[in-house]
């Protein structure tokens, strides 16, 4: 009964950061601001890596293990919902869990394609472009555009679902994602939350990984130093 602490701060911060970065990446990509696009893309990479780590180290409502269910459970949940007998769920419901996985997976795919993609002049390239051939980098650039459209589709579906909950089911999902709290009409099990050291560990690991990728994933200290001291020409000027 009453208010329950549903989403921890890292989950909420991740969610709204993705919203902001998604918009910024869209704008910078469309307007040829390739350096800005690459920088924000690397921040997005760090966020996605963080969320994956948090899916194993975070609190109960953040964990993949708590909300990723098999198709049988999803269909049973949908059937029960239609009959108005769906159980009260603290966290993502079985279908919503898949929405999280699909959106996160598409984001990871999109970031990965951006890392190896190149423009036709081959100067405005992702930091891992040197690991792939010209043709692969070209194809990744094309796929980067296709996957973006698929992402837009799933973002639209996600927003439509939230609006459906708000206006048809009279259930505001936006407020808990902002405040972290949600009111339940019946007694529910309280979620458990992760200690601060796990948050610190996840943030450090995600940032270190994104930084390593930004340097072109060097395998020796010498390579890392070279990448650090002499940024690729594309970092100084935009060529797109």
């Amino acid at each position: 009964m009453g208010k329950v602490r549903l989403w921890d701060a890292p989950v909420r911060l991740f969610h709204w950061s993705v919203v902001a970065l998604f918009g910024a990446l869209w704008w910078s990509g469309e307007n040829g601001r390739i350096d800005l696009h690459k920088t924000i893309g690397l921040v997005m990479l760090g966020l996605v890596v963080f969320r994956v780590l948090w899916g194993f180290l975070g609190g109960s409502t953040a964990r993949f293990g708590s909300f990723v269910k098999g198709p049988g459970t999803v269909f049973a949940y949908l059937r029960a919902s239609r009959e108005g007998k769906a159980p009260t769920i603290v966290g993502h419901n079985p279908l919503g869990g898949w929405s999280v996985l699909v959106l996160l997976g598409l984001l990871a795919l999109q970031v990965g394609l951006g890392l190896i993609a190149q423009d036709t002049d081959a100067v405005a390239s992702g930091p891992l472009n040197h690991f792939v051939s010209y043709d692969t980098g070209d194809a990744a650039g094309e796929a980067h555009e296709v996957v973006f459209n698929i992402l837009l589709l799933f973002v639209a579906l996600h927003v439509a679902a939230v609006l459906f909950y708000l206006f048809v089911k009279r259930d505001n999902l936006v407020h808990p994602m902002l405040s972290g709290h949600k009111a339940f009409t019946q007694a529910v099990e309280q979620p458990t939350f992760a200690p601060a050291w796990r948050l610190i560990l996840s943030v450090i690991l995600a940032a270190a990984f994104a930084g390593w990728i930004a340097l072109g994933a060097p395998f020796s200290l010498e390579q890392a130093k070279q990448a650090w001291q002499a940024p690729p020409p594309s970092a100084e000027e935009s060529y797109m």
Partner: protein
Amino acid sequence: MKKHIVLALAALAASGTVVSAIAATPAETVAARQANFKQLGRAMKAIGEELKKPAPDLGVIRTSAQSLNQAAGHVGHGFPRGSGPESGVKTEALAAIWQRPADFQGAARNLVVKARDLQTAAGGGDLNRIRTAFPAVGGACKGCHDNFRERH
């Protein structure tokens, strides 16, 4: 008799080649110039990667700079009238190329100059000069893409 047929076929094939070289279809023109841009792109990628390494391979840079210089010279001739978007062939070339031909040819000449500078620098073997000449070629690419190529 058989020999005559072979000869006739060979002559036919040869004439066909000549005709297509003189009057290429828009699709052929677009494909040829795209292949040329890919040659430019491959060379840019190869040089850029060498310059990111602790010990760049001058041999790779020289070969690529030569390939780049060669392709750069073809850019200005790759856009005859009728090979734009109005031809129905899928192309990112903007109509501006044919509306402002002097500007376009100026941009193409700029690429030729910058590519030649890079090849000269590569021939000299001074990495610092190469590092200055390389982004200048990139700037020439951008100078043209900004005005004459479709944004995506």
